């Protein structure tokens, strides 16, 4: 898929910076929630075949906890906050003071807590992005699912589906403290959003 034309490398860098700023802000919010250090990796930006997107979190059948928000406004897209079950259990234990949160069968209370975490993180990702670009961007009410990664992530690929068999993913991995359990922020802007994102940041489009 020819998404970028000229300056493709530079444009990829710009998207990486979008991930850096957005996820950086979200990681800070997460760190405050947990009162713990949260580290993140440099974001990766890649145009991936649909099949490979779920590989980022362990394959299409891996059970993950995902909070999804649809990004609405000037540059619509899909955003997921994805964790393994172990990571989600620990988050719940810290936030709710419960020692026995056990997926995949979470209680209503646990699910709504996960949703709220997604809401806070998605909101901070997007508000920093809105500040940076001067665009109007807001998250819809979040929705949570505990299920196979493939089934969940396919929702983020529908807008790309009409254009080809690849999607552009901005993926930021984060770690809580020194533990190796990781989570991901996935931002998949709709194909139409790229020119708008670039224009707002003064990237020449020719």
């Amino acid at each position, binding site marked *: 898929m020819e998404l970028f034309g000229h300056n493709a490398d530079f444009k990829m860098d710009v998207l990486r910076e979008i991930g850096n700023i957005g996820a950086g802000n979200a990681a800070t919010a997460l760190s405050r929630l947990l009162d713990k250090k949260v580290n993140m990796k440099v974001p990766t930006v890649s145009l991936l075949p649909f099949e490979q997107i779920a590989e980022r979190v362990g394959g299409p059948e891996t059970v993950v906890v995902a909070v999804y928000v*649809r990004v609405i406004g000037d540059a619509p897209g899909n955003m997921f906050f994805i964790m393994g079950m172990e990571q989600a259990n620990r988050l719940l234990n810290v936030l709710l003071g419960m020692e026995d949160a056990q997926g995949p069968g979470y209680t209503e209370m646990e699910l709504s807590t996960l949703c709220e975490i997604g809401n806070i993180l998605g909101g901070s990702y997007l508000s920093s992005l809105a500040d940076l670009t001067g665009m109007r961007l807001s998250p*819809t009410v979040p*929705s949570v699912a505990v299920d196979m990664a*493939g089934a969940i992530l*396919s929702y983020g*690929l529908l807008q790309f589906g*009409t254009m080809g068999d690849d999607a552009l993913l901005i993926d930021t991995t984060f770690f809580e403290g020194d533990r190796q359990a990781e989570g991901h922020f996935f931002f998949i802007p709709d194909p139409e959003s790229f020119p708008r994102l670039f224009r707002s940041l003064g990237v020449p489009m020719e």
Partner: protein
Amino acid sequence: MNEVAILKVGMADMKVASSGESLRTTGLGSCVGLVLYDVQRRIAGMAHIMLPSSTIARENRINPAKYADTAVPGLVEMMKREGADPGRLIAKMAGGAQMFHFAGEDVMRIGPRNVESVKQVLEQLGIRLVAEDTGGNYGRTVEFDSRTGVLHIRSVQHGVKEI
């Protein structure tokens, strides 16, 4: 025991099993896993369908496996080449879930729309749908045994089912 070869069907992909293999596709959410089967010849085809209609396509070269209206006839054609009789085909399907719920977002109804569209095309082609496990709000992995005609469906919260 003979190990059964498994053919993996990716997202927006379709394959035909003509010598006793199983067909498998993983992590179906709003997508539909459609199986067509010629019982007599034991020839099976599976498509992992992502979107209801190719009329919304904006790509230059359409991938027929991706859209319900092109996947069904495309799969029939592939199976015909392997020796299946189109007049004898039956269908089974699973998937088409609504994983997330939002007010007013039409894209969220994509699962049910995929199911409706597949049914419509099957009817147009005169293919009988003998079994389905569709809808709900959960993901499914499906495997079809082309020797027995059984479709195994696995999900995280609802266990295993056979249709």
